[in-house]
């Protein structure tokens, strides 16, 4: 018997079988055809940090399956008055939430919530730690284009240090035998980053990293994170921006991904973002499907 998925906190907690089940279910989900699979279920969206894409994605996913959603944010709520995370979680659960989707600025906040609150918890991003639904939708996107994950060369470019997307993707893709290369300046790609999972390496020369790449995943780079670092914005763009020229270093059938929000002219150029190899819009579409699958599984409406 497969262990039932109780909460989605991070990639590490998932078995390989659970990841495969979520992806299989996500492929069957169709956001354009509303259903009543989760009719009567209440999903609380507890967002301590602003988010457009992930929040909307979870909201559409829940509503497409017939569930109702409520958004809880720190502004104009008890959180602003100093209520603890555990108390907020208890309150939301006691009000009748069947699942809580949480975004939080502190790494590990979702573990605290899951320890004390007895409803399924979905991690919609915790600090620099994990963003498991993003890694799952990315895996779905990659498998739409590549036969298998095993043996793929996936280059993750940018601010890996601050990125929960990079951590989640590395852990998931490593599980299926992909080779992951983190590339960026040393402040963003410290040597220790390669220890996160088997098959992960760090390479500070993007032109070397891109050679033979099957997947290029650009991460958002916030300009303010470059201040005080050894590299200027100009140098970052010169050394690490994904350009049409750099795309040519990868395999001809390589795909380009970005978790958003895209800062054009920073991580990549418009030619690349809108080019034929870009899967950025597909990622967003897959986000809704993947989150439909996650909610269906956690709320016991799917096998």
């Amino acid at each position, binding site marked *: 018997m497969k262990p039932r998925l109780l909460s989605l906190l991070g990639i590490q907690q998932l078995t390989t079988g659970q990841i495969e089940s979520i992806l299989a279910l996500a492929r069957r989900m169709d956001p354009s055809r509303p259903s009543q699979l989760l009719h009567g279920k209440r999903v609380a969206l507890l967002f301590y940090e602003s988010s457009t894409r992930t929040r909307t994605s979870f909201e559409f996913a829940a509503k497409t399956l017939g569930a109702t959603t409520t958004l809880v944010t720190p502004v104009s709520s008890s959180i602003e008055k100093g209520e*603890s995370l555990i108390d907020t979680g208890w309150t939301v659960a006691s009000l009748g939430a069947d699942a809580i989707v949480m975004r939080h600025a502190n790494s590990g906040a979702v573990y*605290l919530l899951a320890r004390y609150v007895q409803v399924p918890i979905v991690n919609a991003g915790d*600090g620099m730690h994990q963003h498991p639904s993003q890694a799952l939708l990315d895996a779905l996107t990659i498998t739409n284009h590549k036969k298998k994950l095993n043996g793929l060369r996936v280059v993750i470019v940018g601010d890996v240090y601050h990125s929960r997307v990079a951590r989640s993707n590395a852990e998931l893709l490593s599980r299926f035998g992909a080779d992951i290369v983190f590339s960026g300046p040393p402040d963003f790609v410290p040597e*220790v980053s390669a220890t996160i999972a088997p098959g992960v390496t760090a390479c500070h020369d993007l032109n070397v990293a891109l050679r033979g790449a099957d997947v290029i995943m650009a991460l958002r780079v916030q300009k303010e994170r470059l201040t005080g670092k050894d590299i200027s914005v100009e140098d970052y763009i010169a050394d690490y921006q994904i350009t049409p020229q750099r795309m040519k270093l990868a395999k001809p059938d390589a795909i380009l991904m970005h978790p958003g929000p895209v800062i054009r002219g920073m991580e990549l150029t418009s030619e690349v973002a809108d080019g034929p190899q870009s899967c950025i819009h597909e990622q967003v579409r897959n986000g809704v499907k993947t989150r439909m699958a996650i909610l269906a599984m956690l709320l016991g409406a799917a096998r």
Partner: protein
Amino acid sequence: MKDMDSLLIARGRVVDPASGIDQEMDVLLRDGRVAAVAAPTNLRGQAKRSFNAKGCIVAPGFVDLHVHLREPGQVHKETIATGTAAAAAGGFTSVCAMPNTVPVNDSAEITRWIQAPERGALVKVFPIAAATEGSLGAKLTNFAALKRAGAVAVTDDGKPILSDRLMRDALRAASRLKIPVVQHAEDTRMTAGCSMNLGATSFRLGLHGMPNAAEASIVERDIALARATRGHVHVAHLSTREAVEAVRRGKKARLRVTAEVTPHHFTLVDENVGDFNTHYKMNPPLRSVADRDALVQGIIDGTIDAIATDHAPHAFHEKQVEFERAAFGITGLETALPIAITVLHQYFNLPLWRIVELLSSNPAKIFGFGGRGTLAKGAHADVTIFDPKKKWTFDASQSHSKSKNTPFDGWSFSGKVVATIVGGKVVYEG
């Protein structure tokens, strides 16, 4: 009447490193002092009461150089009464109280207040006063006045004395008074926003990590200043291999540098943080396996002088929060001896007399507590009796401390305190 105040501790194995004794003997306590230590049966009948210590170690009372009793100001975490009750249960007959109270203990008045009988201390409390006013790191306190009021050392613990000039002046002033400057070695310019050790675990968990260099660079600097001033720097809660090496070199150069280590730092590593368990969050943080091993080596070869607990009680609501927002620190008074025996004696084969030395005679000696840390005739009648073989499981909910923030809840240990005697009075019996 004198006999009424006497106690014979019979048939125990007396381990008194300061006197070079490690054999079965009887100890007679009278009028708050050690009256005699002699071969078994020789002292029979000389005391009204006797304590059968058969199978136990009879040691000079333990001295903890580093505790946070939280009073004045943070009595929801601990009081001097509850903290010293935990100390007694852990075999500590003397504790040094850190000054990061509210307000900070930077005055003779607070130093005296802490020692007042009204506080209800069960064991001897030695205040350590703030080295700078308000521990703000700007202006030195009046060390002479603080010493007269009973302070045994100065520190800004919880924070480092960061300024080179201030640390130099502190060592000079303390040196004239023959008291140590206790340094919380952390270059806070490298650790802002950090909540654990820098390494593979902090990267995986997405937490900002404190580099070893933040500790080592301050220890190196302080040793250079100890050389320049001939002052005594005592390094609190040593945690990195680089800092152990720096202390080792300082000792080789015959400088006045001493160091303590906590039970959690020689036992646990950063990976134990697991899934953001805040009971493994403290400052300095749990380090790597290589650091932990270097601390054990430093204990074995004598680089590290003392085991100190850094007992840091916090209320539930200060720990049951997001990891990055949780308070630093754990309680430690009741688990220090069992951890030392289980880890250092049983696992690393450190002789029991060395553990007694680390918990008692050495800390008493380096802080200049005359008549303590020894069972020599005339010494204070502070005695810790423990059964080194007793197996038991620590239950944090039964702790004498007001707070229960410990990673060792539910751990099974060898070695338990049987009785703690302060000034000839039994203050704890387990």
